[in-house]
């Protein structure tokens, strides 16, 4: 008998008993994958929302011209625009159309509410560079000189706490995903050890016949990978159904805030990759666990 063979033949499938090697491990992985996909989806949605808020916080201000007289309001709005558009660090200036302002106010005033005599401020969106945003006094003085009725609102003032909350939730989601990965790895370690104990007799025989550690580990990692694939797919499909259901309900609400935290389409690619990552992780952990255990044998 010549030494040096590196792997079993195609019949290696039969060397361990048919059926699962690791008891309830596939179902535990299914639960882990379900929770991981939900946490990852939440993290990705929140990350998207956070980046959008960050962009607005860092660069967007709004000038409100609060003047009851519509003629004076229009004149001061034009003056305010001219005052800021040529300032250094201002990247864009846009007068918010009245129709858009009406849309913004309609939830509070109801349809046709603006047809009454309620004075509505003129709004001007101004995008500035982050450096300018950090030193708004120049802009405020220019606006005050040109339009006394104008007020400069820094969007960051009210968006910052929300963005901070969203940022914290995003990192919470990342932490949850990492915890799930750790718990999944621990599950695989326990399952691999249990499988080793269950099949210790077979392993010893293979060992004494000259099977290498890698040959024996390959038997187990293959089986554990199949179990992990099963659990991962079940968990992913259930989580995807939940996410799709939530997405439809959020769409029905029509909430811009909730909508901004929806899972973006490219993020689904990452979520789909999670079961594959789970299988890879299970194989890797199983292999390391088994090789370590076999290393204690002669």
């Amino acid at each position, binding site marked *: *008998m*010549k*030494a*040096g*063979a*590196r*792997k*079993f*033949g*195609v*019949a*290696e499938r*039969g*060397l*361990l*008993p*048919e059926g699962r090697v690791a008891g309830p491990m596939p179902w535990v992985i299914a639960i882990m994958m379900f929770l991981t996909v939900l946490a990852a989806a939440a993290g990705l949605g929140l990350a998207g929302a956070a980046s959008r808020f960050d962009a607005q916080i860092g660069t967007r201000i709004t000038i409100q011209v609060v003047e009851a007289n519509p003629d004076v309001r229009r004149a001061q709005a034009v003056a305010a625009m001219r005052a800021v558009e040529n300032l250094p660090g201002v990247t864009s200036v846009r007068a918010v159309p009245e129709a858009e302002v009406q849309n913004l106010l309609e939830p509070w005033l109801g349809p046709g509410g603006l047809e009454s005599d309620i004075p509505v401020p003129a709004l001007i969106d101004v995008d500035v560079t982050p450096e300018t945003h950090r030193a708004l006094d120049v802009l405020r003085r220019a606006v005050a000189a040109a339009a006394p009725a104008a007020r400069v609102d820094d969007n960051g003032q009210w968006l910052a706490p929300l963005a901070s909350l969203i940022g914290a939730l995003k990192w919470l989601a990342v932490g949850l995903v990492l915890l799930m990965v750790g718990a999944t790895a621990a599950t695989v370690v326990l399952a691999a050890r249990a499988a080793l104990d269950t099949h210790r*007799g*077979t392993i*010893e*025989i*293979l*060992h*004494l*016949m*000259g*099977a*290498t550690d890698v*040959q024996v580990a390959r038997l187990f990692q293959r089986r554990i990978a199949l179990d992990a694939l099963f659990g991962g797919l079940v968990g992913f499909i259930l989580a995807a159904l939940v996410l799709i259901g939530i997405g439809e309900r959020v769409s029905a609400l029509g909430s811009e805030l909730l909508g901004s935290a929806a899972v973006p389409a490219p993020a689904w690619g990452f979520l789909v990759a999670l079961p594959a990552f789970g299988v890879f992780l299970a194989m890797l952990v199983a292999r390391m666990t088994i090789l370590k255990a076999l*290393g204690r044998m*002669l």
Partner: protein
Amino acid sequence: MGRGGHAIAGVHEGAGEAALNAGSIVQFENVGLRYGTGAETLSDLSFSLREGGFYFLTGPSGAGKTSLLKLLYLALRPSRGVIRLFGEDIVTMPRGRLPGFRRRIGVVFQDFRLVPHLSTFDNVALPLRVAGVEDKDLENPVREMLAWVGLADRASARPATLSGGEQQRVAIARAVIGRPELLVADEPTGNVDPDMARRLLYLFDSLNKLGTTVIVATHDLHLLTEVQRADMLRLDRGQIADPTGALRHPPKRAEG
């Protein structure tokens, strides 16, 4: 070792013997084995087995025969001393090289150690699969071996459905299927009738004539007469005993 002598085959008296026999497949020098912190199970074993030899290992129960065999088939490393197998020191050999050596050794375990969920065919094919032989190349040699041990019609049976004697024959077929360079058998005929015992011994004998070194641990004095050219090692309380070789061939009255 001469055929007609009275010394135990290959046994070297004196721990400091400088050179062991040329052409030895196994060499023990001052080997001791201790389990845990207990007394030594094997003490000061120094002997060599020549390549192509046929050896019986005898001795009373508890003498250390199975421990000695475990050292030979690399299930244990000694607590002290030097063991050379196939010309290499296996005591200090890195663990990663041991599988290659194990593939050159066939083992018949006293308790058979068949894989319970595998069929007779697959149990016998196991060493070939471990060695990387493709399935298409397994069929003929395994069928042939099963026929040799009288189990051609039990190829698909699981060990649990086999009798003790049948299990023993599967274990023997598994040990010899790969034509090992060294065959180690622990009480290989303990569960078979005298006719089958002779047949199995004939199988070992045939393998030996093809070049395999055979060492058979047995209590069965009848077996010792079956292979006339065999040498004997006798263990007693963990040490090579009977240096006069009086038991090399049992007296006639013991054959009765």
